[in-house]
């Protein structure tokens, strides 16, 4: 048994569009241990969702294509698996929860059916009744009240938060080793967000499932994850244990992100510091550090050479910056 559950090495996922090649994920490497909770943070278009979809091999193709690197799951390269092997893996060993619970469930099937369907797909020789029992059990676990009756309801009879619970139930129904949650709370209102995160974290722990939580909200990561990856323009710019990200951020982009979050312990009237400018156009060749045009500490070298992800001398913390703080 390899030590790492997931090992992504030099992953490159490009989109071949009419206006050029968009390098959505460009040379991304990271690892996850079994049961670990990893946060992937970045703004829209930073490549975090595409990284996730690459791992489960659901990048829309065309136009998307994984053009390089390897993804080792339990030591086996996912990119070398054929379609049948991939469908065996999806939903059983690796599952995914998506951003918008309102549209992620099929409107014409009952909730119970949609959970039981996954169970039936992956557990050989299970009867319809047993699969349905498992569905009810899962609904109970994600704290849908009156699960036995509600299993017979259709998605439109559920609120957004409830539907996301159902999505989590589907994802965890077969005890996966890895759960990828792509902005699972973005479409929900704030009070529900906390409940859903709490639930997901708790169940992942209970099931021994590793959790990859993708979000643009550092606050979400703080309470949920052990390790954080910060992505920018298709690259990982910083990778560190969650405590270090908040206490001693090394990359100027991470610092920028943290400064743009409102804090309770700040003096009233203090203005937030936004990051000026826009992320770069990924269909153009980027020379040097992709963050250089927006970086307050930019040096001439940053515009010529791309910094590698390197240790900054504080344990596990890595940053892709020539002048980390």
């Amino acid at each position, binding site marked *: 048994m390899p030590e790492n559950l997931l090992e992504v090495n030099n992953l490159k996922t490009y989109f071949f569009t009419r206006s050029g090649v968009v390098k959505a994920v460009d040379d991304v490497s990271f690892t996850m241990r079994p049961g670990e909770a990893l946060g992937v943070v970045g703004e829209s278009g930073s490549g975090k969702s595409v990284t996730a979809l690459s791992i489960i091999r659901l990048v829309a193709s065309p136009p998307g294509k994984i053009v390089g690197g390897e993804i080792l799951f339990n030591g086996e390269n996912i990119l070398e698996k054929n379609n049948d092997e991939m469908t065996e893996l999806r*939903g059983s060993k690796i599952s995914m929860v998506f951003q918008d619970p309102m549209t*992620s469930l099929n409107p014409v099937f009952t909730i119970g059916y949609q959970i039981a369907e996954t169970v039936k*797909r992956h557990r050989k020789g299970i009867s319809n009744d047993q699969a349905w029992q498992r569905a009810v059990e899962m609904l109970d676990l994600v704290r849908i009240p009156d699960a036995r009756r509600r299993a017979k309801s259709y998605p439109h009879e559920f609120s957004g938060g409830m539907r996301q619970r159902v999505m989590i139930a589907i994802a965890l129904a077969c005890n996966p080793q890895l759960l990828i949650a792509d902005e699972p709370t973005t479409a929900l209102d704030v009070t529900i967000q906390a409940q859903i995160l709490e639930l997901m974290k708790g169940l992942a722990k209970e099931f021994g499932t590793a959790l990859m939580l993708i979000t643009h909200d550092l606050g979400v990561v703080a309470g949920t994850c052990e390790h954080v990856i910060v992505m920018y323009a298709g690259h990982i710019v910083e990778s560190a244990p969650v405590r270090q990200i908040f206490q001693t951020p090394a990359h100027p982009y991470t610092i920028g992100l943290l400064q743009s979050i409102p804090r309770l312990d700040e003096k009233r009237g203090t203005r937030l510091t936004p990051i000026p400018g826009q992320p770069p156009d990924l269909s153009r060749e980027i020379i040097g550090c992709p963050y250089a045009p927006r970086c307050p500490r930019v040096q001439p070298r940053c515009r010529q050479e791309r910094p590698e992800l390197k240790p900054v001398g504080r344990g596990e913390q890595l940053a892709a910056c020539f002048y980390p703080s």
Partner: protein
Amino acid sequence: MIQFLIKRLIGLVFVVIGVTFITFIMGYFAPGDPIRTMLGEHFSPQLYAQLRHAYGLDLPWYEQYWNFLVHLAHFDFGYSFKTQGRPVWDILKDGVPVSMELALWALVIYLLIGVPVGIISALKANTWVDTLNMGIMLVLYAMPIFVFCVLVQVLIVFIDQETGANWPVANWGEPWHYTWTDIQFKLAPVLVFGLAGAAYFARITRTSMLEVMRQDYIRTARAKGLPERLVIYRHALRNALIPLITVTGVTLGFTITGAFLIENIFNIPGIGTITVSSVLDRDYPVIQATAVLLAIGVVLGNLLADIAYTLVDPRIKLE
């Protein structure tokens, strides 16, 4: 459900009144005189006046219309002008089964050819398969139906001459009978009608299927590890067929009145042929009656579609 049906049937009454009113007014004010058409060149003014009175045509239009409605309420469509006193229903009753037979078989072809072609095209979108399919379907759909009919007839005649076969190019056989002779009569018009409609169904199915395949729940189905076959036939198809129900319902509604052009060109004794000849003869009672049949057909077709919706889509409730 019962309440819904009652509401719909009350609605039907108003639709029929509206449709008959419009056809009545148009017929009344259209140039031409049915009695003159009936009598020909030479007639006595006395006979003319007598006939006008017999058919109630000397009354003011609102009284004529009122009389028509009263008769209609007793399911009495009145008497034909053209055939001198034959009840309208007597003329129509032989046409209805013929037209329905033609249209129902055509509908079967729409569904059996149009829908699968649409699905295949959507799954192979923007490949040569899709382009070829949609190209053929576009030609079938765009070609005027009378051109299509005549092309098929010419083809049949050509084959007859070459092979010495004696395949008919017109007429219908016994309705709902399928001996070899009946099939020979029915095959060509059914195919023409069916293929033209199948082209339309194929295009709708393709669009709808492509739309559904982009939905988030399809991605969810894939993320669950379902094989592509189940993703398509279980998760996508059922959603993609929902818009087709409307189209099928409306098509079903038109089956009673048949296909005007196809019936005429193939000389099929259905409602379509009867309608066209009654318009040419200014046989108003027959025109009115076919309009009523069409209205009833469309309303019932839509009603069936609404009921079918609730069976397929749990989000829709009849109210």
